[in-house]
């Protein structure tokens, strides 16, 4: 249900503490507009209610960190750790993201319309991440669960030491990390990918993507694998 009014939080007039405190007390269904963010850190962190928060400009570190249920949209670029440890809800970045986007996130959807830097989806634990552009090196490092969709290219060592996260890349992969391998794209994967692209409002053809996952060769310590670590 659309909110009737939008509360404006002008960060040229109030502090990040004021903003987060107000958002923590806000009721589900309310809408918020954050103006003059000017790259401030820790914007809209620790939200628990189903709020609609629009940040009108660039944000710094950990924007929407540990989000639960809220929808946060950033009209600009974001610093490191956007939506880190998100549990649920949606975070959409209209620009590009610095490193460690969606780090350790357990759930929800993170959409980055531009590029994401290194370590996108590091230690991801169930989140879905859709990146419109490219991702940097070591993306999905130690990814435990969830899906990472890259519509552009992936940098070095994609999926290094991967556990059970599933990776889809449309463009080129510079190199795969230890224990990450290309896997067959079956019908269920095409269907899953189509759904993820749709949820991110993208019209890319799932058939143009490749799938990567864990070879599960490093799940147990074996002396013969020592050169892989």
């Amino acid at each position, binding site marked *: 249900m659309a909110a009737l009014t939008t509360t404006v939080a002008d960060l040229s007039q109030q502090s990040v503490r004021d903003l987060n405190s107000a958002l923590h007390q806000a009721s589900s269904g309310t809408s918020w507009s954050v103006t003059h963010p000017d790259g401030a850190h820790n914007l809209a962190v620790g939200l*628990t209610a189903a709020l609609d928060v629009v940040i009108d400009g660039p944000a710094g*570190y950990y924007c929407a960190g540990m989000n639960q249920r809220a929808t946060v949209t950033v009209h600009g670029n974001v610093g490191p750790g956007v939506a880190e440890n998100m549990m649920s809800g949606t975070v959409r970045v209209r620009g590009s993201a610095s490193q*460690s986007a969606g780090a350790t996130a357990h759930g929800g959807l993170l959409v980055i319309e531009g590029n994401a830097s290194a370590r996108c989806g*590091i230690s991801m634990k169930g989140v879905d991440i859709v990146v419109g552009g490219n991702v940097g090196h070591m993306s999905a490092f*130690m990814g435990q669960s969830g899906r990472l969709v890259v519509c552009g290219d992936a940098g070095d060592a994609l999926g290094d030491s991967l556990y059970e996260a599933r990776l889809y890349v449309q463009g080129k992969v510079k190199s795969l990390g230890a224990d990450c391998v290309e896997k067959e794209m079956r019908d269920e994967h095409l269907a899953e990918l189509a759904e993820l692209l749709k949820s991110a409002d993208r019209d890319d053809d799932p058939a143009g993507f490749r799938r990567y996952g864990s070879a599960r060769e490093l799940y147990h310590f074996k*002396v013969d694998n020592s050169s892989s670590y």
Partner: protein
Amino acid sequence: MEPVSHGLRESATFDRATIHAIQRAAETGIYDIRGWGAKRKVPHFDDVLFLGASMSRYPLEGYRERCDTDIVLGDRNATYPLRLKTPVTIAGMSFGALSAQAKEALGRGASEAGTSTTTGDGGMTPEERGQSKHLVYQYLPSRYGMNPDDLRKADAIEVVLGQGAKPGGGGMLLGQKITERVAAMRTLPRGIDQRSACRHPDWTGPDDLEIKIRELREITDWEKPVYVKIGATRTYYDVKLAVQAGADVVVLDGMQGGTAATQDVFIEHVGIPTLAALPQAVQALQELGVHRRVQLIVSGGIRGGADLAKAMALGADAVAIGTAALIALGDNHPKYDAEYRQLGSAAGYYDDYQDGRDPAGISTQDPSLSARLDPVEGGRRLANFIRVMTMEAQTIARACGKAHLQHLEPEDLVALTIEAAAMARVPLAGTNWVPGAGL
């Protein structure tokens, strides 16, 4: 007949444990992974002594005059700092490494004694939260089980950069301990050998950490103290950086600190002794003008009230116990000796916490073994031990004329060895010599 009676001589360089280690490596092709902490002898609190009062100092009556033990942790920024009855806290140990019963027993014992316990690399269990009056929630590189609901349930947050047993190393939990429940809490497949990261995934240095700490404060509305835990290495600089990053409490873990599973080579060869690190930390806090305002918790080989009193005299505000707490619960108890021997160990030597077959039911996820530990009885034993530690420290403090454990000071101490004198920065007993002072 014992070989020594034939005049045979054991090599000091290649002693029997060393020979065995070489043989084991040659046979298995993998390094030794074990629990416990450093077993080598290093300068420690045993190497310093108290100067009790006599003519020049006035003691307190042992059974009549008060010697207080209460402490406040994390009152620099938090709305709700921790107020503990004793400066003996329980160190972070994970559910996964320990059984749910052991975690519950730690919570029960700490609560009964009026102190805090700490989660570990594996999230917060309901048993632990439910039984812990003061629960510190660790924020680790792996972020296993990390969720904001638990963060808000915690009484304090401990950002872990390292631990004394393995500064610079990540965690490890071998497959035999990754049961369904442990796997689900960590979002991992059951039965795999789990590798925890050694670096945090979303920050890399002290400037980033400052922002990260502010994020944690923002998420929890500045209610909770934020600790920073470091393994003892370049302690002077690390403490300064931790304080600059905003730590309310610094937790310093020396090389004798325990672990549930780490390479033996790491445990024995990386990091510095607690005794060497503590004065460095205090110096850093004093130079920043925040000694006592940013509290210092010291761990790594704390075994009793004398260690507690000595740590506090050197400038700590509190200590944390891990290995000693497990021993209080029943670890290495002689009644399990026959079973330890079946595992190739013996009571007093058992350190295979990584193995998951702990007869005492502590470092295991096997339901038949963990059921051996009664959390109520274990908690009572731990509370007893903490009370004894506290009373022992009070005994020493009164003898030094101190009405609070925090009034103990370096001037109350002397060292037995030159090494300890240099590390603790107190005089060698019977002299005025502090090796290295003034350099």
